[in-house]
């Protein structure tokens, strides 16, 4: 990869779950970087391993998941070798994550202000009063009007958009260096979605955090991110700067993914729906995982697993047919 001040460096991350035929390979040699102060989009269809990747970074893989190989470097430490106590200090203070399930991500029995204040108490060791003041200030920064009063509300008294703002406020309370946002706008209506993305961008600019944005909304990626990582069936297929990827997608999968986006300004042919599920692909370990759906499939694709190839300064492709 290019030399930059790398914040997060994932190398050959392979995770399996026990199952038939020796288990399911859920992540297969996932390799990518997130540099300081950039927004990286992680896209791919459901089941492609986006969320698993982020859970692995947080140290939250389900107990049955086994890390076969790989390294996750964060600020010069391999997170996979850190103890639980070290991870606990890292979470919240250095890496934070916004989850998919907006509504249930806040404790229904605790006032939202207290929930944000707790982060300051845990991570900064502030006393209750200071933490409360900081929490109100944080909610204010998240664009919550009348923050002092809202801090005393319970989650069910706030709208979903508000809850998401509180959650983001909670996660960035201690200004983490890396924020993982796993489909942060699922279940929100479109106007609120736009507001939340604006907020995430604003937070990024204010705190200088890097953001790993997991989504399947390519429009959002184009608008928000600087670089994109495309995943399919647990493998990184293509990785490039946003403009580059949208202008010149090299991997057949990326091309199909982009052609499936509906646009108002163009009449396009409806793309053919691909047969089969990505989960089935996870069993066949030899060969390219996209082979069965690929329009440009070669004989070697069935036999040899392609390796990531750098084709331009900041453009990587995992394909036999693109080099």
């Amino acid at each position, binding site marked *: 990869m290019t030399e930059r001040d790398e914040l997060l460096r994932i190398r050959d991350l392979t995770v399996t779950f026990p199952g038939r035929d020796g288990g399911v390979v859920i992540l297969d040699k996932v390799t990518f970087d997130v540099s300081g102060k950039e927004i990286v989009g992680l896209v791919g269809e459901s089941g492609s391993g986006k969320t698993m990747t982020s859970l692995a970074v*947080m140290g*939250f893989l389900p107990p049955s998941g086994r890390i076969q190989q790989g390294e996750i470097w964060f600020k010069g430490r391999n997170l996979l070798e850190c103890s639980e106590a070290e991870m*606990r*200090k*890292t*979470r*919240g*203070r250095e890496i*934070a*994550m916004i*989850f998919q*399930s*907006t*509504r*249930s*991500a*806040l*404790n*229904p*029995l*605790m006032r939202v202000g207290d929930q944000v204040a*707790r*982060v300051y108490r*845990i*991570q900064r060791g502030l006393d209750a009063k200071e933490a409360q003041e900081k929490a109100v200030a944080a909610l204010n920064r998240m664009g919550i009007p009348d923050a002092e009063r809202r801090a005393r509300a*319970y*989650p*069910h*008294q706030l709208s979903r958009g508000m809850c998401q703002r509180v*959650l983001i406020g*909670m*996660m960035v*309370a*201690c200004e983490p260096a890396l924020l993982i946002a796993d489909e942060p706008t699922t279940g929100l209506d479109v106007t609120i979605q736009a507001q939340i993305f604006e907020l995430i961008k604003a937070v990024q600019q204010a705190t200088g955090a890097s953001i790993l944005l997991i989504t399947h909304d390519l429009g959002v990626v184009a608008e928000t991110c600087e670089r994109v990582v495309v995943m399919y069936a647990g493998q990184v297929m293509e990785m490039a700067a946003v403009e580059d990827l949208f202008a010149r997608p090299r991997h057949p999968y990326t091309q199909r993914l982009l052609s499936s986006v509906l646009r108002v300004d163009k009449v396009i042919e409806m793309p053919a729906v691909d047969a089969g599920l990505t989960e089935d692909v996870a069993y066949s370990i030899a060969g390219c995982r996209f082979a069965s759906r690929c329009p440009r499939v070669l004989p070697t694709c069935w036999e040899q697993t392609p390796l990531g190839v750098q084709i331009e300064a900041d453009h990587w492709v995992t394909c036999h047919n693109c080099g």
Partner: protein
Amino acid sequence: MSVPTSALSTRLSAGAFVQRVGGFSKVLREHRMLLLGLVVLLVVILAATFGPSLLPYGPLKTDPESRLQPPSLAHPMGTDNFGRDVLVRVLYGARLDLRISFLVAFSALIAGTLVGAFSGYYGGIVDDVVMRITDVMQAFPSFVLAMAITAMLGNTIPNVVLAIAFSYSPFFIRLTRGEVLSARELGYAEAARCVGNPEWRVLYLHVLPNCLTPALVQATLCLGWAILNASGLAFLGLGVRPPTPEGGVLVGEGTQFIISGEWWISVFPGAMIVLMAFAFNLIGDSLRDITAQEER
């Protein structure tokens, strides 16, 4: 009435404690059975608390002059074979039974939820062991289990409480375990872990409080059962011992006189036991309906 109100105020939407209390009168209007149960219970509690001091008799004071008298103005529930006033003994008995039942429900609730939460949250071998132990405990009818324990430890009041609470704890363990099992995966638990909370704090601060509703409802039902069990044990001579006035003791003392026509010695304490168990069951059932409605 702290138990019923707090049971109402838990659960997902339950954050709104204030709204709930405000809506309490509305709930009462919609659930007449709950209202009836609460009124009956309140009357019993007031009578048991203040009643004895309004009467000129002591619970243990014998009066050979007036043995086995039928209900009259001087003795509204008659007197027993030692000339003791039945009403005063019934009221003292109710006081003791209420105290036993609250202690039982409270200790079974605390112990059961803590163990169940721990078991469900950490899972694995701990969970397996705890579940097998509760299986064994539940293999015995709870009354038989309580009987065996009091027979073993000796029948003092604390032992009766301990025995009944112990025999009820599997219900609480299982209920709480099940709730925790699903709640530990929810967003707020993950979010709490995500900002650096250690596991034990995620459990006791974030997960457990959200899992208490079924256990609290169960606790109100246990209040009624505890009264029946405690007086049942006393009736069989395995619980509270005479001459301490307690529902079961009083019924037991009166049985030998029923056949000769002195029915009041057994019937009034029996009616009191039924009344209290009835009130608790009404409250518990209504709370179960209300919380079930909320979940839908």
